[in-house]
């Protein structure tokens, strides 16, 4: 059973447009929601993350929106650029155990930003 569901599987956006990727989770124990960006031949790299005590977090052109009651969160990329073309993974983690813990990932979204 997949604990974090991600959509869409792929996305094509024109340069300057807004890219939106959605995720939904099942486990209410999750309390940390990161997004990872992966370029071909590289490993996933942390892009931005949010805790459930806030509804939105913005870092530059990247924004996470979080809806705790709906158990959903999304990544918005404003003014999308060709350099943003990559695979994006949402993830979730139980952070409050005090010890390091595993990430639970979505299936990934391949984003292509066209000129």
């Amino acid at each position, binding site marked *: 059973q997949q604990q974090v569901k991600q959509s869409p599987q792929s996305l094509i956006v024109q340069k300057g447009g807004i890219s939106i990727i959605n995720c939904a989770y099942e486990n209410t124990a999750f309390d940390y929601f990161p997004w990872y960006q992966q370029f071909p031949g590289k490993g*996933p790299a942390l892009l931005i993350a949010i805790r459930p005590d806030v509804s939105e977090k913005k870092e530059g052109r990247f924004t996470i929106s979080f809806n705790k009651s709906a158990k959903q969160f999304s990544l918005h990329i404003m003014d999308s650029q060709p350099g943003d073309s990559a695979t994006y993974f949402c993830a979730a983690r139980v952070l409050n155990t005090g010890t*390091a*813990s595993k*990430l639970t990932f979505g*299936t990934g979204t391949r984003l292509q930003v066209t000129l």
Partner: protein
Amino acid sequence: EAGVTQFPSHSVIEKGQTVTLRCDPISGHDNLYWYRRVMGKEIKFLLHFVKESKQDESGMPNNRFLAERTGGTYSTLKVQPAELEDSGVYFCASSQEYSYNEQFFGPGTRLTVL
């Protein structure tokens, strides 16, 4: 500072053969994780070491997979004997001590079992 490194970057083997993947974490990172992504699916957790001890191996698919981290430094993941469904990209990640510390991922090893 060097990141997480993995070796080999690609491996093509036949069904029934043995393959060993290696991960060198960032120096000083006690936590080491193995994950796997089968084509088109999610990145799935395999196991988690804290230093040389297995903290969580709930994601290991079966007893054909053996992970070790002798001395708490690098780790190996052995698949013996390999099956077709073992094909995928194996990622290693490492992090510092506490739960809030970021996990840094290596570039992965792409394993193809023919």
